[in-house]
């Protein structure tokens, strides 16, 4: 066997060679990390040494409280959470649809006048603005707003989920509508179809299974969100968790949290199974 040549170009590993750009990036990441650790009093040593409160909390959780009364409150709480998340996703989806339809950018007709372009751009930007406001305010803040306006209970919580879901779904719907294969849409436009027609027959049929998947995913997110909305008095199982925490009734907390985790996992599985079966 011939011996390998003594000189050959080195290939090197997969990590990029030194460059000023990567060095700068590393430097930025390191300094941000240090700055944030200081700012948040981040201390792993404290977490590991102050075992006493953690021990008390964890041991208090066992055995979980499985008395009939606790199970009953858990059950009603989780049902309410489920209903809130479902209605929130449904109303959100219904509100999101027209906003998404308006907020979908259709390529302007070649050679269209400036007035026509403007007329096309106004509803688009309005719809996008509304969606942005809905989306950028977190659902827990919407819940606070609605609790102040409507009082305590699951209704303001449901509204909060609906508004936030509408914002998120509206944006995702319109992105789905914009991303559908363009050729069938273009073919329709080329034979004189207007914007309503290209939307209904060109974009919507191609986007609808994507909508279903996104809506189911939003419902999953809503279940998780709905469990904390109770912390601000907007109904659901969160309210029970907060009360039990404040009463140091950790064994009840264990039951409530355990059941919540179980239901969230179940809904995740269920929606994932449906989404897998969607035909595109």
């Amino acid at each position: 066997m011939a011996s390998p040549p003594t000189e050959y170009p080195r290939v090197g590993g997969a990590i990029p060679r030194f460059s000023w750009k990567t060095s700068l990036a590393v430097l930025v990441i390191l300094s941000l990390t240090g700055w944030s650790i200081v700012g948040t009093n981040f201390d792993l040593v404290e977490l590991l040494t102050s075992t006493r409160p953690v021990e008390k909390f964890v041991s208090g959780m066992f055995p979980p409280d499985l008395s009939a009364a606790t199970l009953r409150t858990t059950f009603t709480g989780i049902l309410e959470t489920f209903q809130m998340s479902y209605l929130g996703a449904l109303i959100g989806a219904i509100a999101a649809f027209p906003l998404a339809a308006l907020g979908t950018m259709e390529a302007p007709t070649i050679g269209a006048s400036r007035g026509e372009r403007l007329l096309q751009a106004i509803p688009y930007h309005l719809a996008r603005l509304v969606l942005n406001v809905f989306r950028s305010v977190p659902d827990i803040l919407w819940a606070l707003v609605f609790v102040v306006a409507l009082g305590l209970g699951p209704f303001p919580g449901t509204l909060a989920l609906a508004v936030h879901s509408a914002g998120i779904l509206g944006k995702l719907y319109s992105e789905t509508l914009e991303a559908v294969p363009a050729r069938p849409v273009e073919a329709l436009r080329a034979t004189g179809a207007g914007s309503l027609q290209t939307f209904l027959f060109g974009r919507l049929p191609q986007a609808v299974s994507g909508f279903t998947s996104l809506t189911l995913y939003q419902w999953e997110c809503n279940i998780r969100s709905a469990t904390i909305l109770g912390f601000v008095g907007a109904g659901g199982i969160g309210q029970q968790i907060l009360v039990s925490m404040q009463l140091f009734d950790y064994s009840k907390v264990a039951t409530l949290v355990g059941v919540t985790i179980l239901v969230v996992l179940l809904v995740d599985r269920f929606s994932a199974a449906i989404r897998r079966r969607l035909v595109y």
Partner: protein
Amino acid sequence: MTSSPRNSKEKPLGKLALEGVTVRFGKTLALEEVSMKVEPKERLAVIGASGAGKSTLFRTLTRSVPLAEGRIAVGECDLYALSTKELKSVQRRVGTIYQAYNLVPQLPAGINAALGEVGGMGSLRTLSTFLVGPNDALAWRVAQALELVDLGDKAGARTADLSGGQQQRVAVARLLVQRPDLILADEPFAAVDPVTTERVMEALFELNDKGATLLVNLHDVRIARRFPRVVALREGRVVFDGPPERLTDEKLSRIYAGDPYGTGAGPDTQDDTRHPRREDPVRLMEGRDGISAH
């Protein structure tokens, strides 16, 4: 096929006249100073290597790409000066058929065929067609058209579940429903089998016989020879315009110079490795050509 009078109010589109048409995509010159006239009811094949500007030429005729220079007259009117509403009424009478079918795959074949008429629908009729399907008159024409392309039993089938050849026949049915004055067929035979090719061509010729102007983009010169007039593009310019008999081998080799498929006879007749593809200065990007979709 039904002979119900269509758009009796509208007069036919009239002749097409391109004058010095130039189209640019960024720095790429897709069409350069193209001038030609097409009389009503003409039957015309456009040939050229891929990237020669054939698809772009067709897209100018429905005002789907901006013109850098030049003018396109459809009958009496300047296509690029029409208002959006006037443009729509012209587009409604232009039927298109593509290599990639460009049907909406999720819709039933019958609805895709019915979409030939969508341009002429008002908002209310659009909605009712969307919700409950085409009205009786349109449904009957759709059934007739599908019957003519031998897909009478497929009206309710999901278009995506049909074979490529069947989808191209649905696209022909859409044309039959639309009954356009001008047909732009953009490489309609490039992705279908020989049998479908013959049937699609027959249907197109029949529409032409009934009065529609027919323009077909072709890669295959043998098919082009069945047209009375052939226009050849090379690098965005018209390099030949005349009857196919004048299309000599020498002219063909100039038209296809630099194209790996040589005289357009198809990839299987030549060894690609011996003819490495020359970088064509006007080769279009994916998505602008109508060819690279598959």
